[in-house]
């Protein structure tokens, strides 16, 4: 409950923040929503000597409509995404996913940037941004880097961030017409981290043939995962019970869950990858074709 002592730094700009982080190196941590970091600090599992607060940095908290993309500032709170009209209009799967993260109080502070940068395979945003084929912008002491979300997750708690770098923006391509998505999460109790979760996003052409398929998996591997084979199974095919079943099977195969004494065996989670993928795809299909809630 009582965290170890640290020095507090509150930069006003991204540049300042990056400079501080670069100078202080591994002894410093940035804090965004704090909803993952502070609990770890209270348990003394995280003991940074310096805390660089991003909350006073201007211009990191936004949801913008930019032509064929939605831009989301790293400091945007889960609740802001949950309630954003822009999000609901273009990428309703994000609003749906946000509503499954933690609980209302945590959503009022927790940020999408912090969640992705935390690289917790049980974090919900990873799978969703994967399904939407999003990118992240990284700002550091040198040039900005933009990378596909897939390249951002290196391993558990290991984001693709070099010394002094922070995640500053999440970029989501706007889905084409006839798209639909769904995020389904299996949890022990409300607000729990996922036992397993699946994000599915589909775009169909007029004949019901799949033009885009994005499938992301939560808590089913060392990081949030892309179910690549499952996506391939669907691309160019009519999305129906058969192809969905094949995709679900593929997603289960691709998942890399581990045994968890609290939430279930690897075998169980793998089976849930199949069930949730099937259900999420069916829901996404219904939504892409104008049905579904």
């Amino acid at each position: 409950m009582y965290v170890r002592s640290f020095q507090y730094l509150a930069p006003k700009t991204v540049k300042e923040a990056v400079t501080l982080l670069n100078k202080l190196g591994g002894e410093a941590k940035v804090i965004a929503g704090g909803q993952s970091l502070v609990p770890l600090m209270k348990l003394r599992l995280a003991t940074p000597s310096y805390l660089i607060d991003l909350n006073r940095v201007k211009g990191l908290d936004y949801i913008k409509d930019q032509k064929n993309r939605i831009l989301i500032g790293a400091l945007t709170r889960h609740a802001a995404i949950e309630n954003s009209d822009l999000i609901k209009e273009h990428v309703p799967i994000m609003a749906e996913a946000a509503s499954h993260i933690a609980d209302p109080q945590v959503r009022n502070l927790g940020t999408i940037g912090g969640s992705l940068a935390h690289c917790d395979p049980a974090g919900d945003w990873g799978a969703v941004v994967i399904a939407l084929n999003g990118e992240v912008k990284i700002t550091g002491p040198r040039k900005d880097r933009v990378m596909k979300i897939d390249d951002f997750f290196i391993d558990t708690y290991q984001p693709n961030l070099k010394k002094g770098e922070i995640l500053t923006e999440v970029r989501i391509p706007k889905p084409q017409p006839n798209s639909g998505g769904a995020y389904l999460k299996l949890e022990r109790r409300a607000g729990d981290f996922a036992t397993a979760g699946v994000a599915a996003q589909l775009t169909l052409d007029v004949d019901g043939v799949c033009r885009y398929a994005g499938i992301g998996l939560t808590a089913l591997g060392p990081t949030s995962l892309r179910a690549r084979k499952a996506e391939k199974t669907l691309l160019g095919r009519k999305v129906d019970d058969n192809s969905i079943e094949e995709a679900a099977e593929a997603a289960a195969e691709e998942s890399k869950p581990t045994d968890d004494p609290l939430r279930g065996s690897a075998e169980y989670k793998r089976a849930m990858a199949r069930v949730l993928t099937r259900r999420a795809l069916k829901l996404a299909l219904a939504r892409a074709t104008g049905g579904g809630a």
Partner: protein
Amino acid sequence: MARKKQLLETAETYVSVSMKVNGVPCSAKIEPRTLLVHFLRDVLGLTGTHWGCDTGNCGACTVIMNGKSVKSCNIFAVQADGAEIITIEGLAKDGQLHPIQEAFWENHGLQCGFCTPGFIMQAYWLLQQNPNPTEEEVRRGISGNICRCTGYQNIVKAILTAAEKMKR
């Protein structure tokens, strides 16, 4: 190393914070590691805000910060510098209970009372967001708070009653 030292000197061991708590401006010098919940309880003596876990799960520490409900154990006081905070002590006005407080009383929405301030503050925010919640919405809206005594039924009833009262 020298650079680091320099930074160390600019970053003080103690920091000043000021915020408005229940409309009253207050400030203090504290260690940066002071959690907001400890600041409220130990520095300001506002012990109505409780705490019950290390991991941000129980919600006993819920307060309103700049209009939003937050878990005051999951944020450092220094981060709330300049903020407006409402705690359970700030809800009743001129000795008049807030309708949510009344409703908790009338509907037996508390037993040991330890979780109660957190639930009331969360309900306060929830009803601002959604003045007409369904039972389901109330249950989800308070899912960041844990009560070990009541089984939730009367808390839910209290919040639904409060919603009605607040419309009048």
